[in-house]
């Protein structure tokens, strides 16, 4: 215990710092390339819209990482939800609600299986969720021929509609972020998540049913992945079995969560940092576009930035990291 005693760090919280840097980068690039239109309300809305899908997944990922687990199945689940939503709706607005409910049911089931494997089965979460992800991906690709369809026009309002120039999708992200932050900070469930992630044995001895908390966190992650899937279905009109995988939502959501200061061991971090991490990725996307950096170089830079961003706060860690 004496070894990891750390004085609280002075200075700005990770989230504020990271968000500031991201916005700074975006503004500087826009000015330097003369793309000042990107600094207009519409441009900023466009920048923020790049956050929505990854942001939703990453908030869910934050819950599981905080509780000391991890979820690699989100990418496959996103695809599954998007495909299911468009298949059930078949463009018919009357099927909107049933489709959404069915998708949420699927998320509940996947989250439950993940959580049960991890919490009750004692299977390493990386392996358990990698496994469920593969299962979902396989079933999805195999049955894709039969699962064609597209979502209702009305449903696409989520992705394309807005009020006073603010897209609904941003409002959705904001609302769900606030809700998630509220849950983590102000509710019993949130406190239990930090307890189980910070010290599982201690939490159990304090009478917390740790398995249930882990299971619930996995269900939350699945619901957020589902929300991302529904948003993508609305934005893309119909789901394909590859949108989750092509978006690399599994690894990217983990990366932004860790960049945002949530530690992989669990018990420390939060939604604000994660959103700042997502903002960093969105600014990089938008900035690299303005700079006209080619796709391969972009990948190199992104890799270097992921390492650097995590190293900035990890390097102060006392003790060992593997």
């Amino acid at each position: 215990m004496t070894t990891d005693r750390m004085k609280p760090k002075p200075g700005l919280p990770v989230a504020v710092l990271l968000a500031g840097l991201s916005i700074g980068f975006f503004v500087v690039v826009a000015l330097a390339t003369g793309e000042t239109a990107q600094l207009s309300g519409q441009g900023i809305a466009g920048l923020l819209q790049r956050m929505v899908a990854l942001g939703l997944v990453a908030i869910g990922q934050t819950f599981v990482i905080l509780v000391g687990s991890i979820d690699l199945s989100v990418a496959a689940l996103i695809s599954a939800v998007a495909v299911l939503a468009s298949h059930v709706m078949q463009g018919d607005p009357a099927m909107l609600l049933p489709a959404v409910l069915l998708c949420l049911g699927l998320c509940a089931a996947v989250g439950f299986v993940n959580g049960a494997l991890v919490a009750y089965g004692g299977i390493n979460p990386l392996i358990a969720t990698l496994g469920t992800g593969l299962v979902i991906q396989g079933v999805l690709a195999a049955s894709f021929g039969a699962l064609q369809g597209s979502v209702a026009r009305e449903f696409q309002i989520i992705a394309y509609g807005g009020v006073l120039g603010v897209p609904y999708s941003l409002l959705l992200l904001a609302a769900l972020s606030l809700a998630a932050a509220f849950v983590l900070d102000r509710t019993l469930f949130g406190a239990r998540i930090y307890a189980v992630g910070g010290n599982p044995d201690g939490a159990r001895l304090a009478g917390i049913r740790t398995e249930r908390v882990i299971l619930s966190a996995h269900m939350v992650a699945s619901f957020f992945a589902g929300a991302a899937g529904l948003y993508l279905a609305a934005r893309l009109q119909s789901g394909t079995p590859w949108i989750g995988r092509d978006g690399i939502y599994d690894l990217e959501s983990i990366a932004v969560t860790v960049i945002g200061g949530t530690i992989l061991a669990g018990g420390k971090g939060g939604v604000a940092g994660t959103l700042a991490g997502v903002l960093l990725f969105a600014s990089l996307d938008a900035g690299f576009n303005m700079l006209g950096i080619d796709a391969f170089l972009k990948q190199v830079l992104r890799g270097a930035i992921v390492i650097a961003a995590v190293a900035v706060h990890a390097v102060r860690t006392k003790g060992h990291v593997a």
Partner: protein
Amino acid sequence: MTLRTLLATTVALTFVGQALAQDFNDPAEFKKQREQLSMTPQGPEDQPWAQHLGDGMADTAKYKKEGQVTLCFSNAGVFNPWRVVGLNNLNAEAELHKDRLKELIVVDAEGKDDKQISDIEALVSGGKCDALIVSPNTTAALTPAVEAACAKLPVIVFDRGVNTSCPVTYIHPVGGYGFGITSGEFIASKLKKGDNVLALRIMPGVDVLETRYSAAKNIFDEAGINVVGSEFTGSDRAKTKSAVEDYINRGEKIDAVWMDAGDTATAALEAFEDAGLPYPVISGEDQQDFLRKWQSEKLTAIGPAYPTYQWRTAIIAALDVLDGKQVPGPEWVLPQPAITEDVLTKYIDERMPPLHYSLCGCQELPGYPERWGGKE
């Protein structure tokens, strides 16, 4: 053997979707493309990228713009060699028009629909673009974004299409059925009834690839040729070679290999070499490595193409539109030739890298061959 079938059916039956509907078998489209294959193209000879099939023209007077212009291109990505060659074509074509073109802004979506939608929105709201070229990652997904862009500026779409007629024109070669027809008919002509063909495919669910297979399959079925298997290889050479080896190891007799894309054709042929078997009849594509192998090993082969020169056409069309010239529309259908034994030598260029697409129409473009990775 019975156990095997039993196991396979049990698993397959658990998933309802399995054997159900194929949306990619449209007899009308099949017929149309078959006709287009034999049509004589209009336009300048020896410049297939500037030719078109059919008569429709789109009027573009309202888009006329004087002086230097900025073109914007939203690319789905450069995630395969075909797109790499294509993007080089597009950039090189742009260089030909330096006097007219102030800037070409290229934005890469890395194969993500969501990102491409944002990219298009940012290009349109950025206000720099005079015309927008889009190579959509997915047809349905990009439709709303393209529709929104059409309201602001002229849009040209190529390769995969969108579900809207708002773009000025949609550039594409004859299409997937055409590709399948060319290759399927060639193989059918070389095989006897009851012979076996192995189909090697990249991945399921992509319309431009599914149509290739459904066309070829129709032809094989008609000719009484037995499709012993259809394997997805993900464009991975190792997977391709392993898949073929598995069939060989199982003792299947393979008379022909049909491929929906030729980038792993030489890997498939190597499996036969390594097993000490004669080469099968094969349909590949217009990649250099396949053509060279074809020549050196005297294969019975055909190289249908989905020509990369359409990337040149996109720039030409965009500039024509801004000039107010009429362009073929609402679809600009490019001829889709196939490489046959007669013309094989013409398409082989030893300087070019193995996965260079010979029907790039780029031999005269600035920077050839280095820009495409070739040797001086």
